[in-house]
């Protein structure tokens, strides 16, 4: 296996694939050094992606104390309602912006590792709420802690208004507990199914009572709805609070195992190797859940480059589209086109299918999604007309009048030319300047495909434009991106 292929493997798995400006260096650099660079680039605080302001926070600015607050709220009901309405109205557009801006980060950010790991957490902590502001705050929490300590990330996510709203903890009160939040924290965030009892769920739900948020300050603990009685949880007894429950969950080694296995399945291979993950989980647990320890063990290991782990992971729709855009700088004519393809291909950022996130793997592929994937590079490259009818999302459309909805559907349902994109080919051509015409095909194929075998030159060339060297390069890239091989990395 070539050094370059190893490096591309690392770049695809720890980020969103090789960028055009990196391609040249990948023959020479050793993967250990490449990994060091990746880690280095991911250091530092992420710049917050801001699309929505908290209008209520602005309105309440300068009001001190609960009484004054109550008084203000009483006297300004109409103004508050107006701000809430405005936030709701702009939320749909704001969520689209958040989607585009984050996707841009995945394409352009040098901190590829941070964005990729954040993307993993985005599916792990799946959250379907329609407040753009709440989603924006949750994304920032995730991007801030993505490479830090899992315990801190878990705590911050669990206390985010987005997650508390999504998992109904607002309704979890001492007098009428709602178990949704407690159950998902254990089933999806920490232990996994089968490692807790229904009793544990009940008792944890009691401990989480009072965890709430207000639109002013985010997380609040409401003492009056909290059940401060004695709980029995995972063999321990005490007047546990939500924080205690999270601490106890982190003390369970099963949590380290669960997270490690999920990370392995996402970054390495669908089938977790039990021997490897046991060692990884051990280290991760001993480190006190330091993400960098776990990631370093994976990406600096020899087994990561085993044949069985290369070229067989089906890219998710977002990874697929980001990867194309990293290889060839693309300016989408209509940014909504990315959203439309996310929808058609089954992965819209900020709209996971349910609390369990996207199942991944072969579930990305069915007859229609595969054919769209195979045609997408050509659609983007050629400004080909592409008519495709979307399924509506009634959760997102909720509350719009039939007329509004119809107008919106007309606008978005049919992508005709909306798929178009301008590809900036000049830097790509320049990159291949020194490659002889005879070797061009092999060279490009080696850059794009991670599979053991690739379609031969004699197969693809009849469908390639040979009228000039430039056209040859561009159409070879587009045709190779339109192969089943390009769907995996």
């Amino acid at each position: 296996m070539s050094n370059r292929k190893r490096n591309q493997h690392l770049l695809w798995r720890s980020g969103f694939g090789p960028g055009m400006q990196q391609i040249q260096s990948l023959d020479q650099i050793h993967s250990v050094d490449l990994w060091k660079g990746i880690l280095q680039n991911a250091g530092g605080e992420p710049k917050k992606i801001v699309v929505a302001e908290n209008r209520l926070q602005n309105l309440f600015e300068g009001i001190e104390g609960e009484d004054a607050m109550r008084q203000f709220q009483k006297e300004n009901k109409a103004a508050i309602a107006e701000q809430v309405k405005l936030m709701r109205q702009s939320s749909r557009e704001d969520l689209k912006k958040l989607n585009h801006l984050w996707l841009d980060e995945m394409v352009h950010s040098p901190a590829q590792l941070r964005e990729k790991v954040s993307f993993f957490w985005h599916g792990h902590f799946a959250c379907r709420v329609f407040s753009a502001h709440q989603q924006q705050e949750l994304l920032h929490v995730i991007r801030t802690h993505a490479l830090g300590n899992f315990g801190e990330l878990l705590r911050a996510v669990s206390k985010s208004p987005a997650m508390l709203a999504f998992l109904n903890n607002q309704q979890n009160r001492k007098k009428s507990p709602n178990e949704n939040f407690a159950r998902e924290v254990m089933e999806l965030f920490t232990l996994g199914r089968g490692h807790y009892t229904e009793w544990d769920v009940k008792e944890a739900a009691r401990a989480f009572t009072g965890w709430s948020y207000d639109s002013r300050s985010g997380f609040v603990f409401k003492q009056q709805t909290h059940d401060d009685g004695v709980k029995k949880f995972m063999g321990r007894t005490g007047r546990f609070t939500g924080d205690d429950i999270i601490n106890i969950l982190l003390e369970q080694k099963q949590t380290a195992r669960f997270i490690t296995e999920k990370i392995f399945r996402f970054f390495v291979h669908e089938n977790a190797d039990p021997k490897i993950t046991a060692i990884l989980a051990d280290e991760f647990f001993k480190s006190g859940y330091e993400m960098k320890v776990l990631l370093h063990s994976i990406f600096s290991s020899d087994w990561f480059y085993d044949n069985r782990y290369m070229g067989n992971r089906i890219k998710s729709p977002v990874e697929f589209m980001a990867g194309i855009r990293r290889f060839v700088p693309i300016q989408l004519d209509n940014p909504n086109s990315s959203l439309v393809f996310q929808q058609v291909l089954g992965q819209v950022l900020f709209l996971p299918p349910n609390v369990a996130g996207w199942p991944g793997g072969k579930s990305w592929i069915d007859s229609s999604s595969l054919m769209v994937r195979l045609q997408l590079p050509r659609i983007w490259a050629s400004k080909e007309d592409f008519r495709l009818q979307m399924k509506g999302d009634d959760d997102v459309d909720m509350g719009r009048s039939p007329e509004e909805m119809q107008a919106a559907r007309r606008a978005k349902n049919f992508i005709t030319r909306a798929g178009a994109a301008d590809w900036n080919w000049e830097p790509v051509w320049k990159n291949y300047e020194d490659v002889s015409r005879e070797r061009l095909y092999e060279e490009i194929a080696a850059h794009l495909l991670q599979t053991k075998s690739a379609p031969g030159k004699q197969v693809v060339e009849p469908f390639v434009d040979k009228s000039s060297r430039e056209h040859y390069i561009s159409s070879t890239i587009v045709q190779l991106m339109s192969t089943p091989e390009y769907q995996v990395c």
Partner: protein
Amino acid sequence: MLIKRRTFLQTGSLATASLLVPKFMKAFEPQQGLVPPGNKTLVVIQFSGGNDGLNTVVPITNDLYFSNRPRIHIPATQAHKLTTDAGLHPALTIAKELYDNGELAIMNSVGYPNPDRSHFRSMDIWHSASESNEYFTTGWLGRYLDEQCKNCTTPTQALEVDDVLSLVLKGEQNKGLALRDPKGLYGVSSGNYFKSLHHAHVHEEETVDYLYKTMSETISSAEYIYRQSQLHPSAAQYPSTKTGKSLKTIASLILSDINTRVYYVSLGSFDTHVNQENQQTKLFTELNDALSVFVKDLKQNRRFNDVMIMTFSEFGRRVKQNASNGTDHGTANNMFFISGGLKKKGILNPLPDLQDLNAGDLKHQVDFKTVYATMLRKWLNADDAAILKKKFQVHDFI
């Protein structure tokens, strides 16, 4: 810079492809012959967005219905009267006709325990046939394919007339095929390229092989379906609406010798929070006009006894109307079953009890999974317990 497609993508057209089907493609064509007479077909019509069941099957003598809906009720005089107590939405004339002929059965109060009021999640539950606290990544009809199709040579056993395949038709091993127009998307501009790739592909890696298999099956199935749909193109005049076109495609295929057992089509959005009346009437009119032709078409071709049309929605709507002359998300709902082969007809169970509500919503009396079990066991002759992962009681209307 921008390069026009024609200047650098030398792709052939598939116009002549049916004459020149490469040998390897033939391998994917089904070996099964004609569909034996009596072979049953299921057509599912999904009402997306949460159809208001109470304004579909109207409780015309229930005072609570009228008092909860002062501005959006359907007056008893306008409803098509079925029984003393029940009437149909005025736009559903075909349903009234079918009812009178004994070709319609209505099941009331269908739902599931702990209902979810999010469209997406509730649809997820209906598609996957899970409990509301379970998360399945496959759909019930997809699992039917898994059960049924261990040796299938084509994925044409279940078709969704749409551009995007719904969860309902995704199984573990097998997935249905989505296509809106058999002539449509696939193969048109790039089929030759994909066929060349497939032809040259060397089987080596499981994942890539799986993608190649899906690709070639899709292209050959699309072509196969297109040719089948041309064998006996329906002569009936269908309306040119989306539903009209979809049902025309389905009719043409039912009349051909294709092996498809399940057809799936969606109509919406029924999410009538605002000015419900217009929207529901518009959608029901579209459905009614298309369905009338479809039923007549099937009858004329003597297939109506072998076809079962089933309708459902992810939830019904709140009993009480809201302030915008609409209704908000609710719970239990009714389902329609239309066929010449029904054992029991008419209204199968009592109308919903508007007195006994759960926080303003109807309580479900029938678990939708028992309806699925009935369809699987008694209509499609499949192992319902394996597909639904549990044995459910079945109904006797089939």
